[in-house]
């Protein structure tokens, strides 16, 4: 017999194998089933199309969470692509159209229609419009706004222009400075904006005559100036834009600026989109505000620099306010060169601004 060659050990092995087979045959089936169930319960989930569908739908489950110890993130960040597409296909191009378009519209307006001159010569008598507190607050918020707008625009569009223009070394410090300025000045801007809005609120409650102001395009449509109180319809619109979109930008900015409070990646994606849309929109409108306040209309800027405006300007642009305060007008000489408006007796008496 050929098997003899393997000696007794071979025979023992065969006998053992037979024994195992017999044992398996007579083992209780229930136990085998329990074994299988236990294995299924602890086994790694098989990767099936359904699993992938669950993962991609953004469902977070113990089986498909990413592996960092404190993570609540899904295995696959499906919302990331949506954020990317919204940012690069919508926010970025349309923001450029809004801001660039505004510059073009203002330039055309200035060339074709030109500066809004005073309708009569100046009377030389001045009315206090903006007290020192408001002016310093305004210019602080304005400077911060400009720094944040420029650094924000650099963060969104800078790479398309400055990297190839200046090279990596300068671009690197430029963009790094932009981020630091944006992140550290942003909260300051937010707080001061809220103070400024609170201070300005009393002038900006909408009135019936504001509708008429808009109907006449602030004086562009038809003849003469539409009625306006201390703040005209346009100024009130700018105020309420800042009080809504501006505060949304501030709030979303805080969400983005302090990731150490554990807000999720998805929250920050939405905060980023709100921040971008709001900030680009406000930047576009701010260009209009800056134009009207500086070269766009004669006599406006001096209100925010010296605090006083000419009677003629007040009559032209804020006739209802002028009627209220015309008896408080001061001759130019009475103000003096370095006289602080805060010292003015008329300010304490009537508290304008």
């Amino acid at each position: 017999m050929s098997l003899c060659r393997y000696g007794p050990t071979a025979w023992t092995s065969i006998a053992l194998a037979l024994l195992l087979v017999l044992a398996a045959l007579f083992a209780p089936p229930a136990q085998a089933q329990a074994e299988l169930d236990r294995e299924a319960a602890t086994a790694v989930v098989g990767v099936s199309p359904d699993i992938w569908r669950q993962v991609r739908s953004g469902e977070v489950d113990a089986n498909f969470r990413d592996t960092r110890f404190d993570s609540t993130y899904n295995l696959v960040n499906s919302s990331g692509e949506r954020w990317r597409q919204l940012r690069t296909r919508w926010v970025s191009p349309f923001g450029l159209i809004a801001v660039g378009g505004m510059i073009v519209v203002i330039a055309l307006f200035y060339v074709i229609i030109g500066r809004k001159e005073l309708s009569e010569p100046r009377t030389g008598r001045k009315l206090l419009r903006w007290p020192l507190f408001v002016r310093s607050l305004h210019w602080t918020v304005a400077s911060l706004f400009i720094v944040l707008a420029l650094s924000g625009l650099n963060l969104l569009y800078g790479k398309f222009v400055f990297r190839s223009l200046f090279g990596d070394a300068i671009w690197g410090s430029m963009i790094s400075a932009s981020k630091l300025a944006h992140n550290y000045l942003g909260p300051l801007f937010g707080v001061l904006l809220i103070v400024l809005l609170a201070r300005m609120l009393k002038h900006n409650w909408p009135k019936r005559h504001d509708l008429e102001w808009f109907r006449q395009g602030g004086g562009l449509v038809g003849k003469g100036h539409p009625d306006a109180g201390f703040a005209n319809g346009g100024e009130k619109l700018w105020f309420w834009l800042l009080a809504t979109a501006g505060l949304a930008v501030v709030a979303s900015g805080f969400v983005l600026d302090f990731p150490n409070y554990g807000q999720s990646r998805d929250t920050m994606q939405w905060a980023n989109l709100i921040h971008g849309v709001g900030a680009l929109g406000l930047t576009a409108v701010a260009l209009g505000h800056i134009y009207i306040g500086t070269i766009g209309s004669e006599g406006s800027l001096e209100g925010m620099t010296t605090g006083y405006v000419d009677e003629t300007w007040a009559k032209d642009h804020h006739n209802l306010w002028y009627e209220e305060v015309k008896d408080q007008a001061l001759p130019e000489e009475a103000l003096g060169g370095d006289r602080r408006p805060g010292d003015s007796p008329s300010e304490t008496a009537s508290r304008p601004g």
Partner: protein
Amino acid sequence: MHCDDAPCMAVCPTDCFYKTDDGIVLHDKDLCIGCGYCLYACPFGAPQFPKQNAFGERGKMDKCTFCAGGPADSKEEEYEKYGANRIAEGKLPLCAEMCSTKALLAGDAQTVADIFRQRVIHRGHRDGGWSGNPRREQERSRAGADLTQADELAYDATRQG
């Protein structure tokens, strides 16, 4: 192995990402400002912040370099900033090198796919090795075969909407 159309590259405000000739996506830590946009965009959580500091400062972004280092003036600086550049030494990325079951492979996508297909065939799955071949699938289903399992094996998660 790394993305063809990398979201991190698309959203980076500093444009610090670049793709090597081998298709590896690397980033320049001298340009990175740690804004975290690549983290928002990446489907796989690859970019990760190295630290958590006061005022939300989290340092410059770290990411898988496919063990291919990054831009630096010297080898020491490269190692310091990006870890080992094993690709330059003709080696595999460390994860693939060390993976005890050889589940992690690295290399050209087509080669890696071929290896996986051979494994499926080698382990005796009837359809897995050929799934995705429409003509064969038609023949098989006409012959009355159940192809659901083959479909599952062929499921490519990256191509589903």
